[in-house]
Every structure is written in structure tokens, then in C-alpha cells.
């Protein structure tokens, strides 16, 4: 036997009470785990964004177009190492309910600039550059529909139509790519902008946005200014920002997710703090006589204090551990169905770490009052009672 056994025996002497406390703690941690995973997934765009990548959009709003001629003009700006462009396609597969992320891109440069995020191999790169109607598909999306290289599939747009009035473009899958970073999802498709632009009925010669890499993050501000100055007072003014700032502003549009998460998790934790704290005060009060006996046997006040704190810590760690495991299971089960809207939903190491921190804090906070009571207990008084 050691103190650990003593602590565990104390905790589980009233099994129902211990289980009820564990249940309330695990619920709070399950809520924390799931909501934290959502918050992190919402902000994943900021995490994967690279410091030297800038995004150029129309100053009016990023849904407004820019002319294709900006590609060459921006490529010539000093400090711009690489530049590419893309257009939102508004895609779906077969039924408008099957929303699918499709972007029309310039084949060579787009793959270069996003090569740090996704693993495009030489063969698919070469086929994409050679095939006008080619499409590159992320591993997740390909798996969802069972697509293979060589398949010809119709992909529809809810925004654009072809000159013949059809909303559907036929593309040939020339490659299926994986990811290079754990935080990104491969739930999207790339088609060629030149093919898309030539066949669409309106908006010809325009693009949605440009992405560029600077020589170094240090000159980001100067490059942004140069670009925006260059197009000032033209019909298409630009707004250039880092990829990170752009993603952050976009996520902020959904509403204050972080605030909601904080409020709900806060409410859950205040609840269990009260419940567990009170229950532990009661549990320790019931044991007054035993604590007096322990002290008589020579257990010091500090040792008794540690035993009680150990009990609340153990309680928090058991409940919290199970709760986080449940959160991981819940997010794993939702991951695929939500990946189009919230990519990469998971309880990662960062969340687990902060959960453990919370468990320790909760364990100490709930044990504080009962442990202090046990610490101060006078043996003669404790023997008198009960």
C-alpha cells in the first residue's frame, strides 16, 4: 500500500458519489474538448498560413473580380518571388446539396506556391500541365466519391454557366494528392483556369484572387503597399494582406466563435467546480474522525492535506481523461461529414495539454477548502465528533 492506494480507496468508498462526480467532470471536459476542437479547426487557416504568402483581392470585397492582366503586373513587382491566381467555382457534384470546393487555377504556379501544404508528385504535375480539362483531386474528396485517376466526371457550378447554357463541366482526374501538413484537409479539387475561362458565359478574363510569395516576410509590408499603390484609382483597386490576416478576418465574419466557446466552457466549469467542491467538502466532513485518527498515528497536517488534494486531483484526472477521450471520439465521428465546412476537426496534442492543465487546476480548486479543513483539524475536536 502507498498514499496512492489510500487516496483511491478514499475516493471510491462511496461508489455512487464518486461516479456521479466523475460523470459531471467528464461532461465538462467532453464539452471543452469538442468546442476547443471546433475553435481550433476554425482557426486552422491561420496556423497553416505561411509568413511570406500574401493574398491580393479586389478592394471592394474579395467576391469582386480582378482582371487577369494583374498576374503579369504583380509578377514584375520587386520582392515578389512567385505569384499565382485562382477563381472560386462554386462547385457541386450531381446535386446542389453535395457542395464541393473547386478552384480554377493556373496549373504550374499554383502547384508551386502551395507545394509546402500538399504533396503533388512530378507525374501528376506534368499531366495537369498537359491536360486542359484535367483536374487534381485531394485524397479525401477522391475517397468520398470513389474517384480514381483517369475518371471523367461532370462537376457543376452554382454560379457559372457554360456558353451553351450548361452548368456542368466535364473534367478528367489526372492526379490524387495528399497533404504535407497535419492541419490541412484534402477535401477539394483544382481545375484549370484557362479551360474554365474560355468556356464560361460571363466574367471572361477575370480572376478571383492572387497569391504571391515574397522574398522574405520582412518586406511583406513594402510589397503590399507597392501593389495597392500601383492599382490605386484604377477601376479594380486591390487590397493586399498576409494570408494569415486574410484568413483571420474571414473567420471573424462567422461571428465570435471564441467568445461562445469561452462562455459555454466557462459555464460548464463553474457548474462542476460548485458541485465537486461541495461534494468534497461534505465527503471530508464525514471523515473528520478518520482524519483525526490519521493525525494521531503521526500523519502530519501537510500529509493529510496532500491526501485530500490527491483525491480531488485523481477525481479530476479520471473524469477529465475520460471526457477528453469521449471528445476525441465525438470529433472523429463528425470529422468526415463536416470536413467541407470545418476542416481537420480533431482533439490534438495542444488541446489535450490544456485539458490536463485544466484538470490539475480543477483538482486543486475543488480540493482547496476540504484539504484546508483537514489540515487545520484539531485531533481532540475530531475525536469528539461522530
Amino acid at each position, binding site marked *: 500500500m502507498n498514499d496512492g492506494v489510500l487516496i483511491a480507496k478514499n475516493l471510491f468508498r462511496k461508489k455512487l458519489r464518486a461516479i456521479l462526480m466523475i460523470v459531471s467532470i467528464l461532461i465538462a471536459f467532453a464539452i471543452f474538448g469538442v468546442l476547443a476542437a471546433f475553435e481550433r479547426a476554425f482557426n486552422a487557416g491561420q496556423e497553416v498560413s505561411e509568413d511570406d504568402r500574401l493574398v491580393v483581392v479586389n478592394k471592394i470585397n474579395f467576391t469582386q473580380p480582378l482582371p487577369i492582366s494583374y498576374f503579369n503586373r504583380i509578377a514584375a513587382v520587386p520582392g515578389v518571388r512567385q505569384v499565382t491566381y485562382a477563381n472560386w467555382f462554386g462547385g457541386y457534384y450531381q446535386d446542389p446539396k453535395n457542395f464541393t470546393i473547386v478552384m480554377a487555377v493556373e496549373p504550374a504556379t499554383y502547384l508551386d506556391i502551395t507545394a509546402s501544404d500538399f504533396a503533388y508528385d512530378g507525374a501528376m504535375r506534368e499531366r495537369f500541365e498537359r491536360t486542359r480539362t484535367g483536374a487534381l483531386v485531394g485524397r479525401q474528396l477522391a475517397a468520398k466519391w470513389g474517384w480514381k485517376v483517369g475518371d471523367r466526371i461532370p462537376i457543376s457550378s452554382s454560379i457559372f454557366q457554360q456558353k451553351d447554357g450548361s452548368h456542368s463541366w466535364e473534367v478528367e482526374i489526372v492526379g490524387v494528392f495528399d497533404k504535407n501538413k497535419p492541419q490541412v484537409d484534402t477535401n477539394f479539387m483544382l481545375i484549370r483556369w484557362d479551360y474554365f475561362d474560355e468556356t464560361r458565359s460571363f466574367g471572361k478574363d477575370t480572376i478571383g484572387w492572387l497569391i504571391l510569395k515574397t522574398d522574405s516576410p520582412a518586406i511583406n509590408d513594402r510589397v503590399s503597399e507597392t501593389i495597392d499603390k500601383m492599382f490605386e484609382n484604377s477601376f479594380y*483597386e486591390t487590397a493586399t494582406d498576409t494570408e494569415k490576416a486574410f484568413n483571420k478576418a474571414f473567420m471573424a*465574419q462567422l461571428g465570435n466563435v471564441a467568445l461562445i466557446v469561452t462562455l459555454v466552457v466557462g*459555464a460548464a466549469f463553474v457548474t462542476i467546480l460548485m458541485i465537486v467542491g461541495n461534494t468534497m467538502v461534505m465527503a471530508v466532513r464525514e471523515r473528520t474522525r478518520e482524519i483525526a485518527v490519521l493525525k494521531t498515528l503521526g500523519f502530519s497536517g501537510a500529509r493529510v492535506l496532500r491526501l485530500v488534494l490527491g483525491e480531488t486531483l485523481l477525481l479530476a484526472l479520471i473524469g477529465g481523461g475520460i471526457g477528453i477521450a469521449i471528445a476525441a471520439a465525438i470529433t472523429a465521428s463528425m470529422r468526415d461529414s463536416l470536413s467541407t465546412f470545418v476542416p481537420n476537426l480533431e482533439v490534438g496534442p495542444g488541446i489535450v495539454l490544456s485539458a490536463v492543465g485544466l484538470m490539475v487546476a480543477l483538482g486543486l480548486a475543488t480540493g482547496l477548502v476540504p484539504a484546508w479543513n483537514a489540515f487545520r483539524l484539531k485531533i481532540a475536536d475530531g475525536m469528539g465528533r461522530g
Partner: protein
Amino acid sequence: MLKQIAAVTRINLRSIPQRFWPSLSTVVAVALVVMVLLSFLAMSAGFRQTLASSGAEDVAIALRAGAQAEINSAITRDQVRLLEDAPGIARGPDGKPLVSAELYLIVDGIKRSTGTKANLPLRGIGEAGPALRKGVHVVAGRMFAPGSNEVVVGKSLLAEFSGFGLGRTVKFGTARWTVVGVFEADGSVFESEIWGDLPVVQSLFNRNNTFQTVRMKLDGPGALAALKAYSDHDPRLKLEVKSEKEYFSEQSSQTNDLIQKLGWPLAIAMAFGALAGALNTMYSSVASRAVEIATLRAIGFSGFPAFVGTLAESLVLAGIGGAIGAVATWLVFDGFTASTLGANFAQVVFSFRLTPATIGQGVVLALVVGLVGGLLPAIRAARMPIVKGLQG
């Protein structure tokens, strides 16, 4: 028997102060659960209300087939002309059809609360545009003059986003616009929009001859069906025609689903946590009253009053918690405004709405926690052996 129940219940309730802290923890736990549930439901109700009040039954909206939202739609000038001659459309006193072809664009604004860029809808509307919407009236300034680069802004948009005050000049691209009026529209989604004259918006955004939607005032109950048939049978049209009400209720369902799907599971999960607390409190209540209960049993009371008394104590605690939660939510959140991205990829401003029905749901949840949390301890109280209880 009733007297017995009343007597025991009174003893139970009077003994609550002796267990002040555990009882308080149950009350606070239940209150927080109810607050979480009600704030999500109020958010959902507010959002639904905003979109529901936007759609009129007697206005039809035409979109390109498959577009789903105005932002994705595209309609040509020829199609607009065909629709103006369609059957079932009401006409104004001047004999012109009440039809508004509209262009829906997104421009940047700055959200006051976060200081970040946000997508705001700029709508170019036809002459009949304002009349096609319920309760539109200018509350400050005046309506934009046709042919001018003037805009009017919705009341909600003005409150949530900066830079659109009356008399201010706003710049979209190279064009400058003057804000000449602020309008209300029955608390509908239109209050989160900027309106300008259609031809001016088309030309300053280089979208000549393109439209996104057409709104048409219907002249009677059968008119929508006639209009649909007209569109379906003309190969030049083939548009999706539905009532505006239907269109907005489809739009509200997605976001609304998300809020509800988040709110209820969260509240139920938290309710289980609070339930654990309630059970602990009530078991300790039964344990601490063991001598009283046994004494009453010994002098001839039956077990049933002990059961009812315990259950009543639990229900009272949960009821107080539920009431506190409802009042707190009402104080904090009723009328609280927020905005999020709607189906049109633009911000929709809405207010949290705490309706009596919503509050009812919160109170029911609280009482369920109280009922379940009191049941098992109440059974224990009723079944407690008298001798054991008397020993304390």
C-alpha cells in the same frame, strides 16, 4: 395523508438552509444549464425571426435554376422583360407591373465590435423595390434619388458596422456614394443591406445588363402557380420561381439547424452534469435527515410523505435554478444583437429573442433535472429502515 405530506414537505423545505452550500450548488448548476440552452435558443429564434419576417407570401422571387442564393444567381435583360409580361403579376396605379429586377453585390465594411472587415450586401433595386417589401420606411434622411450615386442603409447595418452614417461618403472601387437615408424594414434581413438605384449600381460596378434576381408582386392566391407554369413552359426562362417566404425559410434552415444542433446537445450534456450534482445534494439531504425521517416513521407516518417531501425539495431547488437562469438570460441576452455570414455570403444582423415558449423549454429542462435528481433519493428516503435511521 395529505396532512402528512404537507408536514414532511414543510420540514424538508425548512431544512434547506442547513445545507446551504450544496443546495446553492444545485441551484447555480441548473441556472447555468438553463442559461446555455436559452441563449442558444434565443439566438436561433432571433435568426429565424429575422429571415422569416423578410419573406412575403405575395411576392415571388425568380432565380437562375440551381442558384439557391441570390449571390449565385444571374438573370438576363431579356428574361427580365419576359417576366414583366408574365401572368399573375400585380400592377401599380400607373399600370406598370410591380416588378423589381435587382443586382446583389458584396462590399467590405468594418464590423464595429471586432474592427475587422465584413461582407456587406449592396443591392441595386428597381423603382418598385421598396414597395415590394413590408414595412419599409425611411427613418432618417430620404430615399436615394433615381439616377444618382446615392445609397440608403438599413438600421441594423448602421448599428453593427462603421462608416455608413447619414451624410457620409463611401467609396467602393473608384466610385463614391453618399449615404442619404436610413431605413427600417420590419426587423427583416433587409435592414442589414445597403440599397442603391439599379442602373447606377450596374454601371459603376461594370455589370451593365446583368441582374441577379427579379421580385414580383403577385395579384392573387393562384398567381404563383401561374407564374411558375409560365416560366417552366418558356425555354428562354427556365427560372426557379418561388415565393419570397419560401426562399427565406430555406435560407434560415441551414444556419438555424446548426445553432439548434449545437444548443440542445450542449444543454443536455450540461444537464447530466447538473443532474449528478442534484443527486449528490439530495442523497446528502436524505442522509442528514435520516433521524427525522425515521422518527416520523416511528410515530406512524408512512413512507410516501418522505418520498414526496424529498422530491419536492429537489423540484424547488431546480425550479429556483431554472427561474434564475431564465431571468439572467433575459437580462443579458434579450435584444442582444449579433451578426453572422448568411447563405448569401454576406452579414445578417439579428437580435436574440427570448420568447415565452423558449423560456418554457428552459424551465421544463430545469424541472426534469429536479425530478430525475430527486427521484432516486426520494425512493431511498421512503424505504429507509426505521431502526437504522434512528441510530443516526
